[in-house]
């Protein structure tokens, strides 16, 4: 048993030290219209992207997106960035996504990752999970949301822009 655990631990350390996921994989993803686009098409502009993985039943996810929505107008005047709210709702709750987004008047684009193809390809385990990307290059990622954290996320974005 210990041999195996050591091996697992070793593999993990190697992996963390030597490698990390650099790009958002180019896989098909569904739009509100039920048609498919690809991630590289969506992330092709020369701007920064916030990819927020959420679900209609995830309370902290909605708190994060509500908070981002509040500051979005103000910040998008100075910062060149775009937000994608990527819903991981499956068949149980997917139909609720479009009415919910409208009911909340969110200003972001929404993509649907119904069977978690993108979530799996990005190795995301828990929600909310937020990624900052420049085109399809991953610059930063974080799990969870605490009130006010959206400001920290936007600070990070500003730092990247200054660089």
């Amino acid at each position: 048993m210990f041999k195996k655990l050591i091996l697992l631990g070793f593999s993990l350390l190697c992996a963390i030290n030597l490698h990390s996921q650099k790009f958002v994989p180019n896989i098909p993803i569904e739009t509100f219209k039920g048609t498919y686009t690809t991630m590289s098409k969506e992330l092709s502009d020369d701007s920064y992207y916030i990819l927020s993985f959420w679900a209609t039943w995830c309370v902290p996810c909605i708190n994060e997106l509500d908070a981002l929505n509040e500051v979005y107008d103000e910040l998008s005047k100075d910062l060149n960035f775009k937000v994608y709210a990527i819903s991981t709702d499956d068949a149980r709750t997917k139909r609720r996504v479009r009415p919910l987004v409208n009911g909340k008047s969110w200003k972001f684009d929404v993509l649907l990752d119904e069977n978690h193809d993108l979530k799996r390809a990005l190795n995301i385990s828990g929600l909310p999970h937020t990624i900052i990307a420049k085109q399809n290059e991953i610059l930063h990622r974080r799990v969870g949301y605490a009130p006010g954290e959206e400001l920290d996320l936007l600070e990070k974005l500003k730092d990247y822009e200054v660089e």
Partner: protein
Amino acid sequence: MRLNKFSLFLVFFLFTFSSFAQSNNYFYGSFESNGVYYQESESTDYDKKFASNTYLNLKYNLNNKWVFDLQTETYLPKQLQNYSDLLEDTFVSTFSINFNTNNFNFTAGTIYEQFGSGILLRTWEDRQLGINNSLWGLRSSYKKQNLRLVLLGGYQKKANTISEGKVFGFDSEFTVYDKKDSYSNLLVGLSYLGRLEAPHYVSYPFEDLTNSFSARIDYNSDNFYLNYEYAHKSEDGVVKFNVVSETFIKSGNAHQVNAGLIKDGLGLDFTFRRLENMGFYSERVEFGSPFFETTLNYLPALTKQHDYLLTNINVYQSQPNISFQDPSLMKAGEIGFQLDAYYNIKKETFLGGKYGAKISLNISKWNNLKGNYDYESEDYDLDFLGFGEKYFSEQSLEIRKRWSQNFNNIILFVNRYYNKRFVEEKVGEINSKMLVFDNTLKLNGEKSARFEIQHLFTEDDKKNWFGYGLEYNFSYNFSAYFNSIVNYENELEDKPTYSNFGLSFSKNASKFMLSYGKQRGGLMCYGGVCRYVPEFKGLSFSIITSF
């Protein structure tokens, strides 16, 4: 299929390979480990014992065209309580080679796929529930202009083995028209799934091959959408008391209609669904497996998905199957509907105040299929749109309101009817009302606090419950919580109380959690799938990281 040595070889091979790799070729993955020391458990197998589930996923990207994906799972010294007994030791759980271009994708190995809304096929992984019903075979998908086509075939994973039945099918989707820069379009889709299971020890009086197909149409416009899906499953033996019946043979079908209305600040969604004998497994005898082993399709409960401790007591589980328990308890499926409404009350209005408010309403009702059921001759005759015994109904209203820059809250009210006799095949009916206040206060710097109180009012079953929770965020990365629920009017036990204390630390894509306390036993639901769990008290930890 145990591939331990093979897996270790692969890990080393890929690591070696990657160290010579160019920048375009890289390694990434995730690690997750969940462990519990059971200080006390209702299950004697776990009392005073430690158990853990560990998942290591490694992916290798080659030229942005190829992805090699390997996952090992370790259950040491044994699997967590209420995971399948077949999950033990260390084994390669999934492995695949994927080739991907913009229009073409090919996978050999582990396949995750969903046809339409999943009525015929959905293979996915949910570690919290111990579900991984992926297929092991070949899949290819092709997209050209208006057409999208998926072809697949293989065997289904069953814990650390593969199941007996062969599964194969296709899914197609055709865009009839699609207006640019608007939501307007029309899509049609057609799917087929076959399951061939011919056990050598028995010859069934029905076909070894069960065919299922579905057709769907999806219309969208800027302010309105409407879609309909129909599915049919050919005749198959009904599983009764864990045996495939040779006399009770039925086909199955499903109808689902969904419509919605969208206006700025308002969203309405309505779904009607009728399921008749639609449970589908790659191994017939696994029907109704508590671990969802060999389940092929996804037929979730269409009700509001709750996130609070007390609103999660007595939630609905969909009833897609035939069940003839006794002459007073006969079911052939479910019929019902769900309505959701979302409304945004604008800022600077009389009701909205300075910051506005958000309202959501959910109404759902689910019943047995109405008809004449004959227990003796194992048959039924159904009214197509008839509502039989009521399984479940719920009305809920949620208001989210910000009161100041630093303070906001959520008020949730739920009114629920739950027919325990028909849903769980036990005794009783429960009428309950629930009220939740969830308050968040932003403090100085990165600090914030959350306080919630909740109450469940009922004269039935175990009577009233009360609960509260406190959460304090010391910074964006570090938080602590305490929550407690008490069944203070329970007549059989003296105020059973379930309290938990936990710490959570997160940094970038990693999270570490530690908690201690007592977990409520009974039916636990997550993501629309439910399972019975024994009550336990213990120390739990969880590590999640993506790299």
